[in-house]
């Protein structure tokens, strides 16, 4: 079971928990504003853009090529950007905070 916090662009904060699936699916299931996940998680729509806390970035890991190609052309990209459809919900991310980019 992993508990994580999403901070949205309107400064809302939501703690959610899950034990499987992707971080995008967890966010959508809990109605996190700014995470749409339109494509269902196949890395086609870039509607699940989040920022990882710099202190946690090594644990989460960098984006693979397809994902980084998507992010490269996003106006809001930073070095800590990820598409959360490509992050698995696991103990690895327990306790982390993610800022929603949109």
């Amino acid at each position, binding site marked *: 079971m992993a508990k994580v916090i999403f901070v949205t662009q309107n400064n809302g904060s939501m703690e959610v928990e899950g034990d499987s699936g992707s971080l995008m699916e967890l966010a959508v299931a809990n109605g996190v504003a700014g995470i749409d996940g339109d494509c269902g998680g*196949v890395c086609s*729509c870039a509607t699940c853009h989040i920022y990882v806390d710099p202190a946690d970035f090594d644990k989460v890991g960098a984006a693979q090529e397809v994902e980084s190609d998507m992010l490269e052309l996003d106006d809001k990209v930073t070095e800590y950007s990820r598409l959360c459809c490509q992050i698995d919900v696991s103990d690895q991310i327990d306790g982390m905070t993610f800022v929603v980019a949109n």
Partner: protein
Amino acid sequence: MKAKPKAISQFDDAFSQKRSTSGLGDMDDQNDPVKMILGLKELRKVAHNCTTFQSGSTPGRIVIPSEVAIRDTRQIPFELDPPEHTGFRQLLNPWFKRPLDNAYQAKLQQIIDNTIDHALQQNAIDIVASFALPLQSKALTLLLNTSMDRAQTWIDWGTHVFRSESSNLDADKANILYDYIDAEIDKTMAKTRPSVPTTEDLFSVLLNAEVDGKKLTKEQVKGVMILTFAGGRDTVINAITNTIAYFSENISDLQRIANEPDIVNRAVEELLRYFSPLTQMGRVATEDTTVCEHAIKADSRVSLCWASANRDENVFSNPNTVDFDRKINPHVSFGFSHHNCLGATHARQILRQLVLTLANKVADINVVSADENIEQLGEFSRKVGFNRLEVSLTAK
């Protein structure tokens, strides 16, 4: 047992050779030539660069075939560039995300159930005219939040708002749509605004909305409505028809979805990648520039060829195979960047619910006859869908 026609579900990659050699294709279109961008990565860069490759050119010019000769109204937000584009998109996004609501999905399910049940009662049915078109039109009443009665008028217009059997660009037919939208705007302006927001339709919402502190003009409302009617018509009809065509030759995949409904999102995204219901969309260069090391002159047209990019072997393994296990699928069937498809949420919801319902209700799909819709695009011929697809469905 009747033999099924061969290769109904096969959609060849028309662009492979040119994509791997020059990366660009050429086509003329009413004496306004188009350089077609064929590779995914190059296409994405151009789609994102709305300063050099603009959408806000003469209304109708970024559409291929060009609609300059039949349309003066600018489609909004599609034919605007940022920053003008931004406010309109922000206004429209929440409305076009309504298909994510449970109540919307329940109504859509009724439409899909009725459409499939009707088809199951026929010996044979033309999927284009008697299944996909009515389904698209009835679903559009949900997107507009208007009465289902309206759908019959839109069904009577036929599968493409601008095209008739005699012409790819039929001005008389286009005027039917424009006159209809003008009349709806006038009717809405003459009425009192509904006091209950959930009963308000898109015409009313737009006529009472502001963007950047200004109320929308009638012409702007018309521009949004033309886009809503035209953009999601033959594209959705192609997607629905091609999906049925695919399962007619791959019924085990439909059975798999019945057994594993969780894969439906992946399946729909993969079918969208493979079919690419809209082949391409244009942009106009604002300055002399280069694409794939080829010179592009100011005020000339390029196209973002979604259909080619979706088969780019540098990005997709086995690009010509439909693979429901493709977990990473960065297709561009709904476009890319600022101008990604406003109706994508609605289209995806239709397809997801349609495929799940077919999986639950249909045991087999047999094609009786078919007439493929082949686009001639300069040096390329591409199957984009069907003019007619007559099938018989067998119930579970």
